[in-house]
Every structure is written in structure tokens, then in C-alpha cells.
């Protein structure tokens, strides 16, 4: 019989909690460290911000982790990958056989001058419920002028979310009968609203049809909150009466030894197929915390967690880079951004069923985290049926 392995997981988000629940208790001692002890369903911030939803967004980790998982509520301050220990905020060190960093991403509004003031004033839908509710109040208070939704930085969670915000804002403004008085403007640093070209062909015409003004190539340099102006690195300016900005994201703020395992934004460098941290066989990073070139989304964390679980169990598993991001287009319409390392994003057509699937997923999310083995057959068959190489033949 082989010895039981000590696995330490840092972070109890979708990836960390799912991985913890996937490891068999007779082979692994699993410890999960989380600073707050809650799992958040972050995609719901969109509906708090643009629909005023008050649906509960979090569950205690105790209620969704399997009984064999040891939960430590503390903040990890440092990790030494060479000597295989983790240090907690109280100074205590924990040794491991394997470590998985699933610490997510943080928002950093200090990178852009004036952004902090703007976010305090109008809110944002990338941090917490309180700030998302502030967006809802911003929407409810604008009666005329320009409502600007701007992507400040390419590194943010959920690639569709900025456009989703613009679509839902326009729906809200129209429902209040203010379309003639309030102009919704969407600004992005890319050459087009959605960065992946095939998906843009699906969504840009809808944006134009709804009268949302598009400003491309606007890389936010700084904000002048008093003048209500944003300026770009390209030298352009945009005036606003209210502005919701997608803020820059950085990796979790902990100290790494060696220091060169992270990029300049604090994301951990890793192999895109196995999620092994650069230079280490016994350390992994999954989800938003990684610098792997994939979208920062829950589905990425979900799929990476299952690959890492299988590698830990001795299998030769590899990531496909699959994304499956639900994309709310407003008025009950939705699509999915589907692609992987081998097939570019598909032109997946919008319909109401896709939107219902997004809502259904929100309803089953915590059950899926707690019982991945029960949901695997459903998700496996969905991912097979919607394999991008198959969809490509149908939709191009």
C-alpha cells in the first residue's frame, strides 16, 4: 500500500473546492486553506449590478466540502516551493507533499490614476456585492447623458462580462423609457468589442442594433474624476456622466519562493497542459491565479481542477484549454464563448435556451461543487456534444 499523500489547496473558490472534493480520502489527506471560509458564485455580481438581484451569492465552505477535507480559515502569506512549506498569517508553517494554488485574482485599482475615486463613486461588478449594488444605484440614478462602460485592462475575470454589462445596462435604460436621454457607450482597448474575432461577429451587430455606441482602441491611461473625463494611451478622451469600469486584476498577494514563478502582475507561471508550476513537479496552480493563457473563468477552474485531480491520482491527464463562457445579451438572450487550444472560438448563435442554461447553472452551482462525481456525466456529455471542433463545422 502506498502512503497517504498530504495535499494542501490554497483557496476555496470553484477550482479549489471542487479539487478538494474530488480527491479520494483513502489516498489523500486534503487540507484547504481559505481566508474567509466562503465560496462565492462571482458570476452573480452581474445580476446584482444590472438587475438589482439580492439572491445569496455565497455558501460556507463547511457546507460544501466533503467531511474528509480539513478546512483552515486563515490567510496564506508565503509559500516556499523549494522547501515545500506554506506560511500562515499567524506565523505557523504547514508542510505538504503536493500544493495546489487556487487563490484566485484580486482587483487593483491603484494601477490607473483616478480609477479608485471613480470606482468608489459608481461601483463595480468585479469585487463584492456592496460594490455591485452601487452599480445598481448608479444605473437607477442616471436620467440623462452618457453612461460609459469601459474595459480598463485585458487582465480581468470573465471575458464576456464587460459586454454583458453594456447589454444589460441598455436593456435597463430602455425599460425605463430613457433611451432618448441616456446614451450607453462601450469602450475597449481592442480593435472590436469582443476580443476573439468569431464571437465578435455574433455580438457586435447586436450591440449596434441596440444603439450602444462602440469606442475601440481605447486603452485607459488615467481618469480625471472631477472633470468626468477618461483619457487613453492612444491620446483620445471620453466624457461621461456615469462610468462603470472593468478594473485591472492581479494575482493573489502572497510571497513566493522562488520569486520568479510569478509574472509582473502576480499570476503564477505554469504549464498550460498540466498546470504544474514552472520548475516544480509537486506544485500546481489552477483557475484565475495562473498566468496560463486561457480565459479567467469558472469553467477553466472547473476543468483544470479535474485534470490536476487526475494527475495527483497518477493519470496522464491534460488540459484542452476549453472555454465555455455563458454570454448574456440582454432581453433573455444568450450565447456561449466556446473554443480550446486547438480550435478557435466558434460563432455560436444566440438564443433563449442558452440564457436559460446560464440561469440553470447558477441554480446547480454549489451542488456541482459538492458532488462533482454526480455531475460529471452531465458535464462530460455537454462538453462532448459542444466540442468546438464539431460546432465549428456547423456554425463556422
Amino acid at each position, binding site marked *: 500500500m502506498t502512503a497517504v499523500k498530504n495535499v494542501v489547496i490554497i483557496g476555496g473558490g470553484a477550482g479549489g473546492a471542487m479539487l478538494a472534493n474530488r480527491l479520494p480520502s483513502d489516498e489523500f489527506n486534503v487540507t484547504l486553506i481559505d481566508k474567509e471560509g466562503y465560496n462565492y458564485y462571482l458570476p452573480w455580481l452581474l445580476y446584482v449590478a444590472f438587475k438589482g438581484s439580492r439572491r445569496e451569492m455565497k455558501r460556507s465552505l463547511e457546507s460544501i466540502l466533503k467531511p474528509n477535507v480539513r478546512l483552515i480559515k486563515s490567510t496564506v502569506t508565503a509559500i516556499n516551493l523549494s522547501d515545500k512549506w506554506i506560511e500562515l498569517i499567524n506565523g505557523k508553517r504547514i508542510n505538504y507533499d503536493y500544493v495546489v494554488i487556487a487563490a484566485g485574482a484580486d482587483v487593483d485599482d491603484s494601477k490607473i490614476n483616478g480609477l479608485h475615486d471613480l470606482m468608489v463613486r459608481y461601483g463595480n461588478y468585479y469585487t463584492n456585492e456592496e460594490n455591485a449594488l452601487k452599480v445598481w444605484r448608479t444605473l437607477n440614478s442616471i436620467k440623462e447623458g452618457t453612461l460609459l462602460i469601459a474595459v480598463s485592462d485585458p487582465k480581468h475575470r470573465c471575458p464576456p462580462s464587460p459586454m454583458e454589462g453594456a447589454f444589460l445596462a441598455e436593456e435597463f435604460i430602455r425599460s425605463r423609457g430613457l433611451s432618448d436621454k441616456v446614451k450607453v457607450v462601450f469602450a475597449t482597448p481592442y480593435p472590436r468589442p469582443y476580443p476573439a474575432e468569431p464571437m465578435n461577429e455574433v455580438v457586435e451587430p447586436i450591440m449596434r442594433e441596440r444603439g450602444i455606441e462602440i469606442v475601440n*482602441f481605447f486603452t485607459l491611461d488615467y481618469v480625471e474624476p472631477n472633470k468626468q473625463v477618461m483619457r487613453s*494611451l492612444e491620446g483620445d478622451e471620453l466624457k461621461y456622466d456615469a462610468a462603470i469600469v472593468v478594473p485591472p486584476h492581479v494575482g493573489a498577494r502572497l510571497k513566493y519562493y522562488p520569486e520568479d514563478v510569478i509574472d509582473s502582475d502576480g499570476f503564477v507561471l505554469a504549464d*498550460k497542459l498540466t498546470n504544474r508550476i514552472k520548475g516544480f513537479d509537486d506544485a500546481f496552480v489552477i483557475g484565475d491565479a495562473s498566468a496560463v493563457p486561457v480565459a479567467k473563468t469558472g469553467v477553466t477552474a472547473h476543468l483544470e481542477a479535474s485534470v490536476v485531480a487526475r494527475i495527483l491520482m497518477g493519470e496522464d491527464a491534460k488540459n484542452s484549454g476549453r472555454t465555455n463562457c455563458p454570454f448574456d445579451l440582454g432581453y433573455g438572450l444568450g450565447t456561449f464563448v466556446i473554443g480550446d487550444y486547438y480550435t478557435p472560438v466558434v460563432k455560436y448563435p444566440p438564443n433563449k435556451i442558452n440564457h436559460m442554461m446560464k440561469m440553470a447553472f447558477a441554480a446547480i452551482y454549489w451542488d456541482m461543487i459538492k458532488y462533482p462525481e454526480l455531475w460529471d456525466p452531465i458535464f462530460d456529455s455537454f462538453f462532448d456534444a459542444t466540442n468546438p471542433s464539431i460546432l465549428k463545422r456547423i456554425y463556422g
Partner: protein
Amino acid sequence: MTQATRTVDARGLSCPGPITELVKAYRNSKMGDIIEVLATDEGFKQDVQAWIRKTGNELIELKEENGEIRALIRIVKR
């Protein structure tokens, strides 16, 4: 050969796409920096040229070999 200040490896990145990595490198750059971007996404060649036209930065090199695109950009405007 021109030495890159930073290399951005966006190979295999289809969503959100290599253009996002270039914009990220632009944000973090200083005047005079040379950014090398490696990509496999077909659309990137057009995107990088459109981006150069808009931003006024300098495209030192753009070539495609075995399905791999390499762009070398000098930051002269920001």
C-alpha cells in the same frame, strides 16, 4: 537581431485572443521598449497592423512560419 524587452507568448490563445496580451504588454511598457508577441491565432496579423495604425507604435517585424506568427513592436507612442 533586435532584442525584445519582453516576450508575450499567446500561442494557443483563441479566447480572449492574442490582442489582449499585446494590449496588456502596452499598458506595462515604457517608451522604447520592444515587445515580441508569439501567436497562432490567424486573426492576429490583421489585428496587430490595425493596432499599429491606431496607436502609432512601430512594427519592426511581422512574420509567419509554420502557422506561428511573430510580431516585434517598438513602443514609441504612449
